[in-house]
């Protein structure tokens, strides 16, 4: 769930006399730099290992069908991004700017698909639309013995698009809320009709939102492991997993991971470059007016139908299929005690990850907000790596590192927690950053002028004020960890089962009923994370 992260991407603050920030005290920069170095470690090790293998790695890359993997991954990323954008643009506009029936209901419902982890979504796709799936079962009496195979690309495209379009929807919607209505009014008064105004004024204003939402979807798709594995589409993540797990070709797996990281960084840079040089915000101060509402008239009910269709395919169908199999599973007497231990494991590692990530993120956030400068910029950029790094790449790097240099840590909980910290650090830093920025440095100065030392000032003034933000960040990390699959799968101690890995192993052996119950439980849990995101969207308005 990366919406929150993007919202907190490093920004330039304006206003006030430009004071040169003082040199940060060691108690802040030392731990922050340490965190930065630790985060850098997996990436450096991956590069070092691949380069260490020298020509062997290059040979393997060329001998293996690497180009096919790259092209398939890029093709999937491009088409999922395009599909989600085309889907999200009308959905966003209709929920913010039109008199669509039940607008408020739809604006919540269209975000809910985010609660479905990709592997659960893919599982539902297989269950419902597989060659011998439920649909085929219903068609059997009509003489249909087998449905066409939709695995691979079409299945991945459909599943990932239906699950990830809310990312673009959320960013476009936020931009539509912020849009100055006077811009459209100026355009109309200058003689442009509603359509010309939309394409010449509104849409260009939405460009950064579309780009950042698209970036979220692209990175989500690129790093997705669950859906493409279950649907057997040979993109980076699944290929890497096979090379690591079944083919035991670790050098190739490492080399492919490094290429994957390079692709992710490339996508990140593309989004940066697309921002261009225009300014996209209200130029005038003054009270924000709410967006004006466009009457749809005879298009009102077709629009309603469009929403119903999207909600059916992205939410109602998968959830009812899931419910059906969960009920069947319970009726068939699936053992529930295994489920409870998996749930307990999930909660245990997620809580540890949330605590560790928040603690690691705090000095970085303080450094970034209170002592901007080159150290802060470097550390922040490094910790931002987790945003682009696919979980499988981090997991592999840590496996190799553990096996070669830190055998006592190999396949232990601490190493797993470390992977989570690297992956989710941007979330924790982001929310700590936002709440710190709301605490005026004057409060701290006032406290010091009243005779308190810096550490006392932090514990009596700053910390109590940023605590809600820190806890929200911890909550997000907790929920993200609950859903995380590839790193948990690869780094988890032997015999260590979480909800996510239980679903995955049951699903990959086609025990649908066994997978359905933990999946339902996980969806309930991750609903809270969506509620958190929606709560933030509401407050930002």
């Amino acid at each position, binding site marked *: 769930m990366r919406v929150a992260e993007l919202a907190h991407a490093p920004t330039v603050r304006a206003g006030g006399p430009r*004071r040169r920030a003082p040199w940060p005290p060691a108690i802040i920069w030392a731990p922050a730099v340490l965190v930065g170095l630790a985060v850098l470690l997996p990436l450096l090790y991956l590069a070092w290992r691949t380069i260490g293998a020298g020509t062997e790695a290059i040979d393997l890359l060329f001998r293996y069908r690497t180009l096919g993997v790259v092209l398939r991954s890029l093709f999937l990323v491009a088409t999922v991004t395009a599909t989600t954008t085309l889907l999200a643009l009308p959905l966003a506009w209709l929920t913010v700017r039109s008199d669509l029936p039940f607008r408020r209901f739809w604006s919540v419902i269209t975000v809910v698909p985010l609660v479905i982890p990709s592997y659960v979504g893919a599982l539902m796709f297989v269950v419902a639309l597989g060659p011998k799936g439920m649909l085929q079962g219903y068609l059997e009496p009509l003489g249909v013995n087998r449905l066409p195979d939709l695995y691979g690309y079409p299945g991945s495209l459909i599943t990932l698009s239906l699950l990830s379009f809310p990312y673009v929807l959320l960013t476009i919607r936020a931009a539509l809320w912020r849009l100055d209505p006077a811009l459209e009014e100026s355009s109309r008064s200058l003689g442009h009709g509603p359509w010309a105004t939309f394409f010449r004024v509104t849409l260009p204003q939405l460009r950064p939102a579309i780009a950042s939402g698209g970036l979220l979807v692209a990175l989500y798709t690129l790093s997705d492991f669950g859906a493409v594995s279950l649907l057997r589409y040979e993109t980076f993540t699944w290929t890497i997993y096979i090379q690591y797990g079944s083919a035991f070709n670790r050098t190739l797996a490492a080399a492919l991971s490094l290429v994957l990281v390079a692709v992710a960084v490339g996508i990140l840079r593309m989004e940066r470059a697309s921002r261009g040089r225009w300014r996209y915000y209200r130029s005038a101060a003054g009270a924000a007016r709410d967006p004006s509402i466009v009457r749809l008239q005879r298009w009102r009910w077709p629009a309603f139908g469009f929403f119903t269709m999207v909600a059916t395919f992205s939410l109602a169908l998968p959830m009812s299929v899931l419910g059906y199999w969960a009920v069947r599973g319970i009726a068939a007497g699936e053992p529930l005690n295994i489920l409870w231990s998996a749930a307990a494991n999930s909660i245990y590692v997620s809580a540890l990850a949330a605590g560790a990530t928040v603690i690691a993120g705090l000095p970085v956030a303080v450094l970034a907000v209170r002592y901007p400068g080159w150290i802060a910029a470097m550390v922040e950029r490094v910790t931002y790596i987790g945003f682009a790094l696919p979980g499988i790449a981090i997991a592999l790097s840590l496996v190799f590192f553990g096996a070669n240099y830190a055998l006592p840590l190999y396949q232990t909980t601490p190493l797993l927690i470390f992977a989570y910290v690297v992956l989710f650090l941007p979330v924790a830093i982001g929310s700590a950053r936002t709440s710190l920025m709301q605490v005026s440095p*004057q409060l701290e100065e006032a406290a010091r002028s009243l005779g308190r030392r810096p550490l006392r000032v932090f514990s009596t003034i700053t910390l109590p004020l940023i605590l809600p933000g820190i806890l929200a960040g911890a909550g997000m990390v907790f929920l993200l960890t609950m859903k995380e699959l590839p790193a948990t799968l690869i780094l988890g101690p032997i015999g260590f089962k979480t909800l996510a890995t239980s679903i995955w192993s049951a699903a990959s052996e086609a025990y649908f009923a066994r997978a359905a119950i933990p999946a339902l439980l996980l969806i309930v849990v991750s609903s809270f994370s969506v509620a958190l995101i929606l709560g933030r969207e509401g407050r930002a308005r």
Partner: protein
Amino acid sequence: MSEPVIRCTDLTKRFRGVNAVDHLDLELESGEILALLGPSGCGKTTTLRLIAGFEVPDGGTIEMGGRVVAGPRAFMAPEKRRVGMVFQEYALFPHMSVEKNVAYGLSKDPDRERKVGAALELVGLTGLEDRSPHELSGGQQQRVALARALAPGPEVILLDEPFSNLDPTLRGRMRVEVRRILRQAGVTAIFVTHDIREAGNIGDQIALIHQGRIEQVGAPNDLYHRPQTRYTADFMGPATFLAAEIEKGRIVTEIGVIPQHVDAPPAAGMQVMLRPDDVHLHASATGQGAILFQELRGGFFHYRVRLDSGTLVESQILHTHDFEVGTRVDVTIEPGHALVCFQDNTAVNLEPSGPPDHSADAHRHA
């Protein structure tokens, strides 16, 4: 002569290569209220922050009670300086009640309860101890900020644009209140403002800051009527600078001789500064100029007159002198005090020769 409470010597602070505070010298006696006045970006807030200890100077020293608190080899942390600070946005701790805010600086004081009560009484907030800051009006928030800064009994209290967050009607009331509170507490105070009236209302002294340096220090009236530089003259209010020369101990201008004896050799190429209230107008068909512009300001008319030579002169006279635009008028200079002459944008020292017209110190120039 007692030691000044604060002495800044050669104080310098650079931001990105620009001297925000530029070799500034400043002294403050005990119990004095000093206004640092100047446009935004002139370095007045930076000066305040240097004294508070939130910025480290790049040069010069700051002494407090004879002790160096910032200098080439010394830097005292802000929490050790015993300097109270009232911030522009008050910076009240939002998670603490009024009482907790005021008590924050008294953590180790055995007498804290009494001191908190006394501070709140001084600012007139007794009874609001348990409120939280967001439940207070702007004026009340400012009182809390003052009480909090005063409670630990600081040597000096610093106020950064203390009235800029209040609405105009409240601002006037709080000016009177803040002056009373500071006086009653007997504390030495420095406050920063860009508002001339505010500086004059509260400050015993005004230090006008220009590009990081002190342009002039003095009583508010001194700065208005006896500016030492054209910058001070212009900043403190509207003025006409009339070309003048000194001839036989008299100041001669195109509208006549100014009733003021000066002991200076003949000189040309000077300007005499006329505040609008120094200039009087009489309707006269044979006058030297005509009314160009009229504006009512309270009980006074403000006029701009174009002399036949083309020179513009400003005048402010009682509302009973109502001249329409275009009326021909005689312009006379009736200052009631000595006027200041400038040469090359600096005031010229004109020692009085004859008996002074009104006040003896009217000719004091630095």
